[in-house]
């Protein structure tokens, strides 16, 4: 009897091992992005990151007892190719896709994934409409959308500085005016404050005292600025010399040490938003070390975003113990995962919470994050 039970248990064990080998049950995840053409340098880091995550997880025994297999396909950032590669990934039977990189390609491919009920997590597509239109409930991203900065600045001005009357100045450029227009739109939508001045200045003019007089006359609670640091330094200097002490807040074009160097003591107290620094995050350091072991040199753009996207997807499958679309989506929205970008989960639209920009203030000649 004893012998029989021993043999039986051995057989059971054997069956289990054989089962996991013979069912060739791997968990396939797709990666799509440009791996050839002029934009290849934007796509390759994400693909490398996903492979590193898969290797790390496989070394620990995989997800739900299955090994992770990465299928990378090249869309060259072209919308017409993106639809082809999306169809290919769907027919391969992937459980989720990391990608695409360029917003245009992502937009073209999304309807195909939506019909196939596949989760897509992009590491680089920043077009606001991808999440905000609400058309793609299967779409998530680990990068902040283009308008996140404007949203953050407006939120800060309304809720932390409690401004009611806001002056917005921009430099008429694509970046500066674009940021200023979004800020204006968000302020008007909030209904909490009024934009009392919206003016463009010419970069490189010999002085800005006339526009500063105009700001002074309109008595705003806050001055918001869209543009780069040379103009910001000139305007802030002129404002402070004319004893106009209202808070001044600008975007990442101003969060540069040369702003502080040039504006000197007048820079004190100026706010500027900028990408959140993740380089001191231990998870980021780990990912970087893994990269340098496997490849060489610097990982390139969107590496940490791609790494976070892969970790988020695999974590969601692990946590929900399922590869079903509904379960993965639910887990992505509710379960935190720690990534090189920090601890993240996704909001109902698909943007990662806690990813993106922070507001900094010049204090003692340095940019200090405002908590």
């Amino acid at each position, binding site marked *: 009897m004893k012998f029989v039970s021993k043999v039986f248990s051995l057989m059971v064990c054997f069956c289990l091992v054989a089962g996991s080998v013979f069912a060739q049950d791997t968990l396939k995840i797709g990666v799509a992005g440009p791996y050839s053409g002029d934009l290849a340098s934007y796509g390759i880091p994400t693909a490398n990151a996903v492979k590193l995550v898969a290797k790390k997880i496989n070394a620990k025994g995989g997800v739900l007892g299955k090994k992770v297999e990465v299928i990378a396909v090249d869309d060259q950032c072209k919308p017409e190719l993106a639809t082809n590669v999306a169809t290919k990934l769907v027919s391969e039977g992937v459980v989720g896709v990391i990608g695409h990189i360029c917003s245009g390609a992502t937009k073209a491919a999304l309807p195909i994934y939506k019909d196939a009920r596949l989760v897509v997590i992009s590491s680089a597509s920043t077009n606001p409409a991808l999440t905000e239109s609400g058309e793609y409930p299967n779409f998530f991203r680990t990068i902040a959308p283009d308008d996140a900065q404007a949203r953050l600045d407006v939120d800060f001005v309304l809720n932390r500085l409690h401004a009611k009357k806001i002056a917005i100045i921009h430099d008429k450029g694509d970046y500066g005016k674009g940021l200023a227009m979004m800020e204006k739109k968000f302020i008007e939508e909030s209904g909490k404050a009024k934009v009392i001045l919206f*003016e*463009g200045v010419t970069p490189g003019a*010999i*002085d800005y005292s006339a526009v500063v007089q105009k700001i002074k006359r309109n008595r705003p609670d806050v001055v918001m600025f869209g543009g780069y640091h040379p103009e910001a330094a000139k305007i802030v200097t002129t404002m402070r010399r004319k004893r106009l002490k209202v808070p001044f807040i600008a975007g990442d074009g101003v969060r540069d040490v040369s702003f502080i160097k*040039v504006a*000197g003591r*007048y820079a004190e107290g100026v706010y500027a938003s900028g990408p959140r620094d993740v380089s001191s995050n231990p998870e980021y350091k780990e990912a970087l070390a893994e990269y340098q072991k496997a490849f060489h040199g610097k990982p390139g753009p969107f590496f940490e975003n791609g790494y976070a996207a892969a970790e988020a997807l695999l974590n969601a499958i692990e946590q929900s113990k399922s590869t079903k679309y509904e379960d993965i989506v639910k887990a992505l929205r509710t379960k935190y995962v720690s990534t090189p970008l920090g601890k993240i989960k996704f909001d109902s639209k698909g943007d990662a919470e806690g990813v993106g920009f922070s507001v900094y203030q010049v204090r003692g000649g340095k940019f200090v994050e405002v908590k």
Partner: protein
Amino acid sequence: MDYFWDLFFSGLTRGSIYALIALGYTMVYGIIELINFAHGEIYMLGAFTGLIVAGICSVLGLSLISTLVLAIVIAMIYASAYGVTVERIAYRPLRNAPRLSPLISAIGMSIFLQNYVLLAQTSKFVPFPNLIPDFAFMQPFEDFIGPSELVIIVVTAVAMTVLTLFIKYTKIGKAMRATAQNRKMALLCGVNVDHVISMTFIIGSALAALGGVLIGSYMGQINFFIGFIAGIKAFTAAVLGGIGSIPGAVLGGLILGWTESFATGYVSSDYQDVFAFCLLVLILIFRPAGILGRTNTKKV
């Protein structure tokens, strides 16, 4: 009404700087009929020289006033040397060439000087210390006009008065007027024309350097490209006032400064340049030679 005076003084400040630079354009044009496109770069070189002198003075621990005076004087001397050298290298060999040749040579000089400073100094904006002290007696007026603005306006006014007197009452001034009227005749009468032309470049460059140091100190930053926009605006001012005419350059500079300032204040700063150039077009339609320019049929 306060707002009006705010804009008035900010326009006057800006206009004064335009006028200082415009004088260089107009004097050179008056004498050799050349648009000296490298003039904006002389202004930029003046600002950089002022910055270097200010740095040395602060190491030596000199007072603010003496630093300002030294920076201005040395920048003026240094920029004059540049102005004369540019004339010797780029314009004098082409004196009898077709009129387009020196013009192209001037554009070449402008590009050369910009890149020279870019390579020798830096491409970034560098901070310029505020050299103008906060005068105690200015306190009650500071809402309208700051100490820097007052210094710019006063220094410009003094420089222009001195220049007018110089041209009117000195021997070399007389020689300049003679050369401007008719170079060949002046030569025949024994005027050293080359000397007069050099003198013109010295005065024009010195005034531009003065403007460069003052605006550098006022704005707190300079880079190698500041001469371009300042040069374009000053050239506009010179044309507006009547190129070749010294009071015209001053008037043109002030009108341009006020137009920009009031357009910003009462309309929108987006349209500041639109107003400035519309005014230029309007004036040139009714007075093709500029406000104070004399139509010289012979030159057409």
